[in-house]
């Protein structure tokens, strides 16, 4: 890759630039800041859309009363039950059980506290999901 071949497509870096290695005119490697690459945006877009779609499904499931808000907030933090369990200090099988709304509704305050702490949100947030 030559310096003038470093992609400078305006994509989604939100103003952040990334370092790329490229050859300059004398054939020496230099570091060039890149503002983005369209092909990479396509690939990354697929992954981001995937995550967003799963999260939206979960939100609807919570509103329909199939899952508990805990599941939504876990996915929002891009965690899985294992990571959440370790972070909150609660066994994985219990975390999974708490995804059932009827069980989540009966949780003690101390347990909710640990989840709120682990997910870095308030307890009020933990009990609800966005309506829109």
């Amino acid at each position, binding site marked *: *890759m030559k310096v003038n071949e*470093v992609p400078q497509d305006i994509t*989604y*870096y*939100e*103003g*952040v*630039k*990334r*370092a*790329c*290695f*490229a*050859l300059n005119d004398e054939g*020496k*490697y230099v*570091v060039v*800041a890149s503002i983005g*690459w*369209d*092909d*990479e945006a*396509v*690939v*990354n877009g*697929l*992954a*981001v859309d*995937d*995550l967003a779609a799963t999260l939206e499904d979960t939100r609807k499931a919570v509103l329909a009363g199939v899952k508990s808000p805990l599941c939504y907030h876990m996915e929002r*933090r*891009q*965690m*899985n039950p*294992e*990571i959440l369990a*370790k*972070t909150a200090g609660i066994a994985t099988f219990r975390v999974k059980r708490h995804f059932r709304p009827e069980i989540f509704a009966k949780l003690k305050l101390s347990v909710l506290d640990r989840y709120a702490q682990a997910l*870095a949100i308030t307890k009020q947030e933990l009990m609800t999901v966005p309506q829109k």
Partner: protein
Amino acid sequence: MSSEVTAAGKPFIHHHSAHCESGATSALFRDKGVEISESMIFGIGSGIYFGHLPFIKWVGLPITTFRSRPGTLFAKAAKRIGGKFFTKRYHSAKKGMAELRRVLSEGHIVGLTTNIYWLTYFPNRFRFQFNGHNIVVLREIENGFRVSDPVLEYPVDCLTEDMERARFARGPLEPRGFMYYAENVPLNPDLRLACIAAMKDTCKMMLRTPFPFVGIRGMRYLAKKTISSPDKLGFKEACRRLANIVRMQEEVGTGGAGFRFMYAAFLQEAADLFASAELSQLSKEMTAIGDIWREFAVVSARIIKQRGQPEETFEKAGGLMLICAGREEQLFRDLDKIARTLKA
């Protein structure tokens, strides 16, 4: 490049790096007066690698990696260049943070392993649960720390709360507050000796491995798997898998083409160091291989964008990967031979 001041009042030049671990390690060396580039550290730490681990899933997708396991680059580079490094992990977050403050007040700059999700100074797109991101802390400021994040263009501020979460995040590859800094380093390290050891090690990892999932064998395995993936998994899932490979190759701070360009830069520097025309030739070959990897990314992006149009196919993408495997195999065999003839 931009200048900053460390806790000791020394000037610190922030270099924009492609890869976090090599960037952080070279920053630590530079702070102690050893001028060494990111690509040199990357080569000496044997950072280049290939692995496809179908049995370890990350967000439901098998892991493909173009780099060595997080942590080994720093350890190998430190060992081969020499010098005394302090490294420690902590059970207690409180103690870990207190130690960080103490070391900063002694005037060192400190490397930390963190979880990138909790570093809120990153744009949301970059944030995902990955426990192997390395940053360098320069000094303490009000409510937080001044941080030189190697992959960002300029130093940034990080809140204490974010820092604590990031350092003590749980999950796979837990950092457990891993902290490292240079106590003293030799001012004129023997880079030639380090380079030779590193090249041999790299060739060993890429060529002579008993596992079919890593090195050149892993590349061939993944290429064949990619070619058959649309029939086996269905087009949509195959696209997801392919996208994940390209993400690992381009997205996660690789300097382009899954670290291949960075390694070419290392070979170029090594060629100057040894005044070796052969190494310089290998650097050019590595650049050419990197360009094929880039082409693979372009083809993959087209497959995904067109969603089913026959123009670009999985056979073509897998074929490009096989070409890369063949040429890289030859390159590392040549490098292995050359490394044995080089004199320290």
